[in-house]
């Protein structure tokens, strides 16, 4: 086992990168053209990946085809969006019908009401508004919480990601040199261009640590408007909350009159039918959704209790946006939620997870890798540490090169997973599809052996 032999891993990475370059000459050539008009050759900085940007062409069911015509089993699914599968027939039909009847009025349509009704049933909070992205949803949720409580401060968990609003774009992947002590982290802006001022309104706490949280509440509880978190952390691989952690947070936030905000952009309608709320049994005051609920169209949503959403109902907090609740995204979301991501689907995802876990267990025992697996509904991933990390700082102790190597081995082996983020499966994935992941994992382990 050479998991600690970084020189060997570097060598394996170079070999896989060379294989990938041979697989994707069209992507490499297109990148050179694209760089002339698209900043960095991409439409989003995350697409500027190592060793080169892969350009997508088409997708169908569990598969995507890249610009070179390589057909890949897609376990990236656009950062976990396409749990409905690419070009799902129900979504295609809904979009094709709606596009001919007008896609945008900046006025409300009946499908928006139907989607709100469905979300209320599914996620156990009654009132909903729409946005165009997860970023807009978290920005709105925190603003609603501040408006509802009349307080300023927001607690945010180190290593969780909440999109790029100025007020939250801190400490998603902080460099530890700047991040302060583990029990008292300081806010680290994700990029230049975010005024320090916005960080001053944040209190950063580690995931899975009730003690630090209790201290923060004791110190400043009456100034805290909201605590926002991913109930299952999805930005450090998958890190599940310890038993009782969410219940304790619910209790603490309630006691201090603080709005608990679940950012379920990644977990909503993916880890379970009713997301982390159903999975944990803990109902927050506000919830943010995006990604999978639109079936592949841009969408976001923020939902909340009557009390939390009071300022939106009364209008003292303006929740707005030209494209919010547009008919096309609403038609796609309605089809996705009511016809595709139905309760039955999650049994299928569990079955896929059975294949993944059995295969993983076999590989692990044969090769003795220090690695753990987490699967929750459509989402899953490995942690190259055993025991698995419980928070951000334990996660970043893992050398990124081993994560990257597995990503490359999967890709050259025909399976597209994110480099470090959790994978996703869809309603269209078969047992054979995910078995390919296991085969590649076997090759990866044998390379390291």
């Amino acid at each position, binding site marked *: 086992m050479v998991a600690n032999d970084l020189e060997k891993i570097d060598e394996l990475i170079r070999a896989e990168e060379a294989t990938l370059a041979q697989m994707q000459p069209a992507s490499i050539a297109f990148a050179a053209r694209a760089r002339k008009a698209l900043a960095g050759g991409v*439409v989003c900085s995350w697409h500027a990946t190592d060793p080169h940007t892969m350009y997508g062409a088409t997708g169908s069911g569990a598969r995507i085809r890249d610009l070179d015509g390589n057909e890949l089993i897609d376990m990236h699914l656009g950062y976990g969006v396409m749990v409905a599968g690419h070009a799902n027939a129900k979504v295609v039909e809904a979009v094709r019908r709606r596009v001919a009847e007008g*896609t945008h*009025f900046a006025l409300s349509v009946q499908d928006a009401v139907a989607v709100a009704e469905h979300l209320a049933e599914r996620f156990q909070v009654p009132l909903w508004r729409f946005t165009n992205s997860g970023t807009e949803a978290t920005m709105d949720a925190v603003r609603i919480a501040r408006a509802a409580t009349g307080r300023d401060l927001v607690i945010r968990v180190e290593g969780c990601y909440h999109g790029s609003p*100025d007020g939250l774009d801190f400490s998603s992947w902080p460099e530890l040199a700047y991040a302060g002590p583990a029990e008292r982290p300081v806010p680290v802006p994700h990029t230049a261009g975010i005024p320090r001022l916005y960080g001053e309104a944040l209190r950063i706490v580690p995931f899975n640590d009730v003690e630090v949280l209790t201290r923060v509440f004791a110190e400043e509880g009456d100034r805290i408007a909201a605590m926002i978190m991913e109930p299952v952390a999805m930005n450090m691989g998958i890190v599940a909350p310890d038993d009782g952690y969410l219940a304790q947070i619910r209790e603490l936030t309630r006691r201090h009159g603080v709005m608990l905000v679940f950012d379920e952009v990644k977990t909503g309608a993916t880890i379970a039918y009713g997301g982390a709320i159903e999975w944990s049994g803990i109902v927050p005051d506000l919830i943010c959704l995006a990604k999978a609920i639109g079936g592949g169209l841009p969408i976001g949503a923020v939902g909340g209790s009557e009390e939390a959403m009071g300022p939106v109902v009364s209008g003292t907090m303006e929740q707005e946006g030209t494209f919010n609740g547009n008919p096309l995204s609403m038609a796609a979301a309605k089809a996705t939620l009511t016809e595709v991501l139905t309760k039955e689907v999650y049994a299928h995802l569990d079955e896929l997870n059975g294949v993944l876990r059995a295969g993983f267990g076999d590989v692990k025992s044969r090769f003795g890798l220090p690695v753990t697996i987490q699967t929750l509904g459509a989402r899953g991933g490995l942690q190259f540490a055993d025991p698995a990390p419980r928070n951000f700082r334990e996660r970043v102790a893992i050398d990124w090169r081993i994560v990257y190597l597995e990503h490359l081995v999967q890709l050259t082996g025909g399976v597209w997973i994110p480099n470090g983020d959790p994978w996703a499966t869809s309603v269209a994935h078969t047992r054979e599809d995910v078995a390919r992941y296991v085969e590649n994992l076997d090759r990866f382990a044998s390379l390291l052996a």
Partner: protein
Amino acid sequence: MTAADAIQIDLGLVEELTKRETEALDRKHARSLSYREEARVHLPGGVSSSWQSWPPHPIYIDRGLGSKLWDIDGNEYVDYHNGYGVMVMGHAHPKIVEAVRKRVALGTHFAQPTEDALPVAENLAERTGLPFWRFGNSGTEATLDIVRIMRATTGRDLIVKIEGTYHGHHDSLMVSVFPPEAKAGPRDNPTSVPQTDGMIPGTTDWTVNVPFNDLEAAQKLFAERGDEIGGMIIVTNCGVVLPDEGYLDGLKETCHTHGAMFAFDEVKTGFTVAWGGAIEAFGVVPDLVAFAKALGAGLPCGAVGGTEDAMSRVIAGTLDQVGTFNGNPLTMAAAKVNLEEVLTKESYGRLDEINRILLRCEDVINRYHLPATMKTLGAKGSIEWSPTPIHEYRDLWAIDDRIPQLAWLWQLNRGVFKSPGSKWESWTTSIVMSDEDAQRYVDSFEEMAAAITR
């Protein structure tokens, strides 16, 4: 007619007519009125965005086609709202429908770029003269990215905007959007007023406002605080308020003299006031520009463009510009066809023809001696209930809200759907409007002119 000839509108009569028109509207909207009660159980206010509700009640829409819109009561309107200026290509344009129907079957989202993003970026570069582009999902995201780029590039946090302009709903720019007179402070040193409850504390300290069309006020601010200012972002938003000759050039020069960046928010003006937006219409190229609205032909979209210098950090990857749905294949497919085949240079001629008909409202204003002025620019136009043209935001305070509200209701009851909030947001035409669609506006405007001057 000169401003001095304008009559005083009898506000008592306006109120009486408003009551009559509101009752007429209620009668037409029995279904919308009852549906609101169902909708508000799970949607605050019964709507998807706070701006989708306007007194007397929200109107629920069934469908749109071309220049027309139908509500759930079956009422037909000529659409002069066009979803806050998005649908300048008209609803369900056949080329857009075809592009979307084709792309949706090929996959709409990979979180990886697709080929269509490049021709869209190239088209935007050609229209604006700005070479480098990135995408987002809304105007809000686009101006958020611009503010971040300006701050990151200069290392300065202070942002300058124009009092009374809207740049989306992120904290840094949701300041002094429509500040009420009581809170706005002195004209030459306006107080930064938060637009909503719940904003991040201290935000208003880092966003400073200056009056529109007052270069000296901006120069004075830069002279005092120039070394703190990262950049200035500008849009014309209160109806159609045109920049004075030399104003935009002067601002750009002032910014650059002080090492600050200069950005246009063209979310509303892009693809509407001209083929090349405000950049073409006013002949000034900023460092950075934000687009959204009409770019996506009715799909959620946003874009940020800039000079090589301005975008250098994004190009190098030292400044993340990110978003899961950014540049998604479906939006890109719609935008590509929209820019290359629908909103072509030639299509803007049609907007001028429509404006020639709409400008008959100016005759009405003159004949009835209305205290009103009219402006059109490409797809955008407004009639402001002020005897002299609006020159900056504070001029709007002199307008009595009751008159534009009646004007909105009046048109609505006669099958013309203007943007609500007509004091600062009047109409957007589309390239598919007919002469009759335009004349319908003129006819009901004259009918109202007669009624309020009787």
